[in-house]
């Protein structure tokens, strides 16, 4: 099952878990399943129109999905998905 890496700012939705195993064959399916298991997380990643927010990036392996097939990017069993939001602390 693919692994989803949850960034620190979103861990309050996953009871502090940093890594989750989530079923799904595309990025879209996996993030849908993530919301079903951890309600509220979707709103932090997507805007009202269902687009990934402009201060959040999603990577499959080390590639940004914006430069692959966006939310339709296929995900393999062993792939790691990273959600990487902008942080500003210094």
């Amino acid at each position: 099952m693919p692994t989803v890496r949850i960034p620190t700012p979103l861990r309050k939705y996953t009871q502090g878990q940093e890594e989750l195993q989530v079923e799904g064959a595309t990025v879209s399916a996996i993030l849908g399943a993530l919301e079903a298991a951890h309600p509220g997380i979707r709103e932090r990643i997507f805007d009202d129109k269902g687009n990934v927010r402009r201060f959040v990036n999603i990577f499959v392996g080390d590639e940004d999905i914006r430069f692959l097939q966006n939310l339709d990017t296929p995900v393999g069993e062993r792939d790691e998905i990273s959600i990487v939001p902008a942080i500003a602390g210094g």
Partner: protein
Amino acid sequence: MASFNEILGQVKQTIREVSVDETRARAKGEGGAAPVLIDVRERDEYEQGFIPQAQWVPRGFLELKIEDLVPEREREVILYCAGGTRSALAARSLRELGYTNVASLAGGFRAWKNAGLAFDRPRTLSPEQVKRYSRHIMLPEVGEAGQGKLLDAKVLCLGAGGLGSPSALYLAAAGVGTIGIVDDDVVDESNLQRQVLHNLERLGMPKVESARKTLQLLNPDVKVVGHQTRLTSENILEILAGYDLVVDGADNFPTRYLLNDAALKLGKPVVHASIFRFEGQLTTFLPDQGPCYRCLYPDPPPPGMAPSCQEAGVLGVLPGIVGCLQANEAIKLILGAGQSLSGRLLVFDALGTKFRTLKLRKDPECRVCSKSPAEIELIDYEAFCAIGS
């Protein structure tokens, strides 16, 4: 017994000598890859001037250092001294070490200079500096020339806080000659858990002043310039103009976006880092290649979507680790050594002690870096994006 002149004559028969004209042409890369040009004279001679692009390795250290400088035995090496004698003897030594393509400049530096060709003068280090920076100077990737670059460099540190503390300390220790610091805050007790530039005696003092005191005690070579202000579209271009590169340790989104756009406008590299609780992000943005901050995150989050450190907390050592990595990036950029993080986002998780590297790409549609610098307009996000610092 043979006299010195007889031996020298024999040596010159066995080595290859090149003329000034040939050396000049070869150094420009005419007729194949440019050779490694090595000045084998003593310090006082070298300081009077040297052939541009030459590496300086005094005759007495040549055999010790040549393998670091020229690992490939078949690479062409041209040696020179003042008049062509020491370099001839040195050429023989290198041949004995297995270097197959070594030449000596006939007539040496004197002939070069008499031909009216250009020469450089090194940035000379004082005896104290040679001692202070000796561990740098020993590194072939730094050397005296690299240390000179550090001493000539002007770096602007954005913020004298969690990230700015370690980066400014290591930049000062490394001998970066001018360090500018932008911060409008004063030292508070709650800063001391991570902001190691400051201490209990500095409570209430402007951070730029506290930083100046600490850095100058560490290294009096460093000129510290305090900018006790907050960057805005009004002052940022003027402040940035005086520096070669920026180390971004700001604590808020409006400043980070403003910096990105202004740095692109002026063509300045930015070593970017940000931290949150146990997590750090680090990358380098170069003005003429690779992605910019807006290719990565096109717009800042709205208020409420991104809590600040004050609200969220941060592990004190985290900015220590990430800020040191920023200093490392900055020093490499100044030296022109190694590979920068341009096009790569390093994500550090302090709890798992895990580093991950993600690929960043330049967005051809990026609404800032796809424009020409003159067309870039600066935005003060504070007006509609009030995120507490």
